[in-house]
């Protein structure tokens, strides 16, 4: 568990599933890699949620106690030393920065607890702005763009491949600042 002044970052528990399901039911996130718009009924949600997934961490607003989003660690490739992550934000919390703060906690947690050198994520073109700050600062890099990789709302859509390396994260000023603020809090 990682706590900051605004969020609590912790492993998911089954009582979180209804909220996660609610987040994933939002039309703007329904076209994800896992479901392609065919979100299963809630009764079948748990195995679908955990498919190819090693761990799920939720981001909870510290004052509200509400789950504002969650991050998944999936498709860990132990031989290569890399893994993929997916990030979901409740529609009402997009732009608040809470889930992106959760991403900082996630990097700290993932690189601190898993033998991973690289974390990768797919981002649809319409969501990639969430990563632009990190790419400008250098914690994240755009590894490439899969042109017209998926169909979203009937339109071919580009998928950006984002990478965060352990080396970059460990050396980043953002990480130092993040941990400094955490230390002050404790």
């Amino acid at each position: 568990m990682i706590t900051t002044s605004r969020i609590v970052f912790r492993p998911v528990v089954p009582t979180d599933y209804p909220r996660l399901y609610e987040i994933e039911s939002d039309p703007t996130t329904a076209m994800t890699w896992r479901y392609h718009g065919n979100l299963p009924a809630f009764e079948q949600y748990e195995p679908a949620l955990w498919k190819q997934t090693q761990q799920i961490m939720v981001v909870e607003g510290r004052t509200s106690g509400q789950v504002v989003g969650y991050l998944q660690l999936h498709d860990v490739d132990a031989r290569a030393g890399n893994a993929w992550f997916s990030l979901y934000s409740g529609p009402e919390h997009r732009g608040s920065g809470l889930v992106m703060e959760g991403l900082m906690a996630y990097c700290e947690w993932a690189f601190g607890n898993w033998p991973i050198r690289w974390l990768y994520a797919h981002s649809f073109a319409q969501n990639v702005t969430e990563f632009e700050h990190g790419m400008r600062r250098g914690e994240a890099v755009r590894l490439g763009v899969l042109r017209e990789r998926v169909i979203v709302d009937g339109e071919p859509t580009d998928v950006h491949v984002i990478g965060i390396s352990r080396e970059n994260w460990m050396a980043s000023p953002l990480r130092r600042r993040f941990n400094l603020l955490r230390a002050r809090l404790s």
Partner: protein
Amino acid sequence: MIEGSWRLAEASDVPFVYELVTQVDPRWWRFSRGGLEPSLLIATAQGVSAGVVVLDEFSQPVACAVLAEAGTMGTGMFEYFALPTAHAEALARQFAPDLLAAAFTGADIQRLYYERFENDADVFGDMSALFEVEVTYPEFAMIGGRYENRTTSVLTRERFAAAHPGSMQ
């Protein structure tokens, strides 16, 4: 022109595929990433959409290609490896256009993806120039004591058809 042929893969080709994977290990990442436990390889092989084997002049298999992850998006993943001999790799290059044409015509594929490590053997020959690199994963995995980059390239149906008119009829 080297004497040889190709045909659709059969269940009886699994021992050859296993041998091929071990000889290029760990370059055929789909199979090698989890180690070479045979039942794991068989389970992985069952997940591919289609496969072909390239045969030498004695009708012995020397290379194998699979089409995986072919779905409703009009995309597929093409994977192609040859035994690590000059003869096998030359045969693989010779039949590469035929196999690509088969992939495009056998399934409704618009965009064919190909992933490779930087030091993988060239099995596409002239076809390599038709693939466009879209993603590079730096230092993806360790092979022989050093990290190698891995790339994802794409070959579109239009690009292939323009370069090989008549091959997809």
